[in-house]
């Protein structure tokens, strides 16, 4: 049986409408899957902090981790009492970037 599409404007509108929905769903679904895969592998941006303090406990400094740092390393002299500054703690904190907000 021959479909008289050109004579029926309603059918055309319906076909266009449904194909639009189909394309939208496909793209949405694909995008969702890709995003999930990516987010699993993606690194959460981290920042490594080094905390050092004077052995007389009158001075403390917090800075970014440098290659070669380790807990117990003597990291210069105290500006107040001239004794050694020792690295006490090294840890990572999540870096809060605006980028993550923009993506959503």
């Amino acid at each position, binding site marked *: 049986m021959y479909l008289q599409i050109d004579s029926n404007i309603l059918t055309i509108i319906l076909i266009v409408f449904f194909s639009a929905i189909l394309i939208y769903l496909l793209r949405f679904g694909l995008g969702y899957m890709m995003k999930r895969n990516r987010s699993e592998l993606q690194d959460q941006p981290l920042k490594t902090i080094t905390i050092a303090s004077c052995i007389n406990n009158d001075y403390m400094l917090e800075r970014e981790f440098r*290659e070669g740092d*380790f807990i117990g390393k003597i990291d210069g002299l105290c500006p107040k009492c001239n004794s050694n500054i020792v690295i006490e*703690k*090294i*840890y990572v*904190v999540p870096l809060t970037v605006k980028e993550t907000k923009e993506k959503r």
Partner: protein
Amino acid sequence: MRYERGVAARLILIETLVKESINKVKNYLNRLGIKEPDNVINGVLDNYFVIEPVSIEPIDIIKRLDHMITNNEDKFKKDLEKFMPNVSRHTLNNVAVSLAIASALFIVFKILRHYYLLGKKYENWILLMQLYLQLPQLVKELIPYTKAIDGVFRGIPIGDSAGPMVAFKLASLSPRIDIDEDTVYSLINIEGRNVYIVKAKGPGATVGRPGKGVYKIAEMLSYNIARIITVDAALKLEGEQSGSISEGSGAAIGDPGPEKIEIERIAVKCGAPLDAVIIKMGIDEAIKPMSKEIADSIDKAYQKVLDIIKTRTKPGDNIIVAGIGNSVGVY
């Protein structure tokens, strides 16, 4: 069919993880100036397995296991030394641990691929279905391992370094005396007590041999020891707070057996109570660079150890404190 495709997709993801970690190791080796990093990596990936000793004859089983683990480690490090002769011991230990992580990932991948191919070959849908259901969890558990490599190479303490960090807080910068391979001790005085602090030799990535260390110190003091305290990171139950401290009895150490039994035997021989102080964390936190939560809990664990020493021992006593764990980034 759906299972098969799902498993294949996840396996590809794991394969990229393996490749990523191998590439990371390769980059770091290049940076160290190693000429042929591929040779080093290929030489490690498929080798150095340990076969469990015969267990139907229980006599000496722990000695045999210890022997094999020690031999294997020695062999591994000697071979690495051949490849990179002018590298410090600490860097060598960092390389060794990173390679061990990469090869562990590779082995997991190979096993999973084995079951996938087996399921496909014999059309065993139950096998594929099991893999399909378990893989999401496995992928999530494996991702931290790739991230751990960066931390270890750069010398950032990991969650498992909690024990050595408590030891550092006790011993501070007092001299480290070698007592066994990659293991050191320091002698300090806390309100009249002689406290021997055992830890792995930092700041390289190694767990040392704390059991042997404790054994040798006990021998040195002719078994005159009032108390032994072990401090270690421990796996929390899901829902528990990361970095919470808990205290109990026994040897807090998670090795295959030889080190733990050494500490237990010494405690029994000396008639010394054996305390365990644990710092709780998730499995991913234990291998990733240390989070602030756990770094802050070190102070609490330190206070707890001090409390035990001050309230449960007398001045003049000999006490051993063992900071168990990986001493990457901790002197």
